[in-house]
């Protein structure tokens, strides 16, 4: 449990990346995709009534903090989560934990982290990172979406931890206090795969799962009547949510394909899971074709063909349904 021996890993997504490297540090070796898949983090949701920076919420993964919550439920890992009423208390507690030799998960706003380049600094409050040591007035940070570990001034991290607004972190710190030995992953994986497939195919509300994708496709058609600048920003926003926000490509579909592949190996090269992984990669490629189509129409001076973009999304949706149906065919052998 020596903080100096902490190993930074470059990950696609902050929350699954933090959880994976934190568990690895304490002896439980789970890859980022395994954490992501086990925690049912893959999803789709389109919430037109929740606005962030004037744009509707479009999510390709479960709510922030759901991985921290689900990892406890699924693996019986015990995590301690602490939030604070003041900056001083929050900063002192982090220092205290570091002095005890712990590595600590931190929720923060991206905007106030100085090691992020200007081009990536947006007001997003649910960014996760690991603080693994302190040197004088600086924290040593393993930010999973960066290639190497970084340093951050103490005051700046505190500012980022106590940013306000939607999903305000309130100084959140978290760390494992008990990790069970000899976890049998197989039944948990089987269960997670079934649950993800079902929720994508059968969620009764129109805003989530495949229905949510169709709903978004419909909203794209409505852009025809909207102001052109808004329409372009809206389309760009969809792609940003899909690609920009640490997704491992194609709105987490590629990470999930990796999880399915890793699972197929655990289940003695299970054919259904292998095929599902392959299909999921193809779905990812479809999402990227969709993104490319949008990028072209944003740059183009010509009128945007909203129908074509909407149809492309419905095509993606059709492909997605095939993967989830395949996943439901999976029967646990042992």
């Amino acid at each position: 449990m020596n903080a100096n021996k902490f190993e930074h890993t470059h990950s696609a997504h902050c929350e699954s990346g933090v959880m994976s490297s934190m568990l690895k540090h304490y002896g439980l070796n789970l890859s980022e995709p395994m954490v992501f898949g086990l925690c049912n983090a893959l999803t789709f949701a389109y919430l037109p009534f929740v606005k962030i920076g004037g744009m509707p919420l479009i999510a390709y993964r479960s709510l922030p903090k759901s991985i921290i919550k689900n990892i406890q439920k699924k693996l019986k890992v015990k995590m301690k989560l602490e939030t604070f009423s003041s900056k001083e208390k929050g900063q002192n507690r982090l220092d205290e934990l570091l002095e005890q030799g712990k590595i600590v998960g931190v929720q923060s706003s991206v905007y106030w982290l100085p090691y992020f380049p200007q081009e990536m600094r947006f007001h997003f409050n649910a960014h996760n990172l690991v603080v693994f040591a302190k040197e004088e007035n600086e924290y040593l940070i393993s930010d999973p979406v960066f290639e190497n570990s970084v340093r951050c001034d103490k005051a700046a991290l505190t500012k980022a931890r106590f940013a306000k607004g939607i999903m305000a972190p309130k100084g959140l710190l978290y760390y494992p206090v008990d990790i069970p030995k000899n976890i049998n992953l197989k039944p948990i994986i089987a269960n997670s795969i079934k649950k993800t497939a079902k929720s994508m195919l059968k969620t009764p509300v129109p805003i989530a799962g495949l229905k949510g994708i169709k709903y978004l496709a419909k909203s794209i058609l409505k852009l025809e009547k909207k102001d052109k600048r808004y329409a372009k920003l809206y389309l760009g926003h969809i792609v940003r949510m899909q690609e920009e926000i640490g997704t491992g490509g194609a709105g987490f579909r590629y990470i999930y394909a990796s999880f399915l592949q890793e699972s197929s190996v655990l289940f003695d090269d299970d054919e259904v899971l292998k095929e599902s992984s392959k299909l999921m990669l193809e779905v990812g490629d479809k999402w990227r074709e969709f993104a490319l189509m949008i990028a072209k129409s944003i740059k183009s001076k010509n009128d945007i063909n909203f129908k074509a973009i909407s149809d492309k999304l419905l095509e993606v949706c059709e492909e997605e349904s095939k993967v989830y149906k395949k996943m439901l065919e999976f029967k646990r052998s042992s």
Partner: protein
Amino acid sequence: MNINNVPQDNSSTYAKNKKAIYALDDDGKVKVVSSSGWNVEEAVTKQALNDLENSAREAYREVKNGNKSPLYYYMFALRMDLQLLAESTGFFKWTIKQDFKPENFAKISDKRLNVYADAMGKTIGDLKVLEDVENECK
């Protein structure tokens, strides 16, 4: 996507950083590859950045012309909107709008100004004057 097809477009919006992308290697294994950027992603990030910069530039003009207080410009310069500024300060939106008027802003208490300064990572002194950005490519 095959690892050889993972875009390496050196996107300016990555500012020389790399992101982890999952892709299929030649042995059929999905693994992490570092990507230096993708033109598609760069286009939409730039679009969002340009929109923010335009808002800040417009706000800057408004303040210069004496229609708005510096607070109005700093909100946009910090990539915030009224919603976020209200949440960050705990002030009602309509009271913040009052502070956008130069004549009201001039009379604002230091206590209230301090809350703005704290939320915006600035000093009271910073907030009172419009910064000079003519030489910057804002």
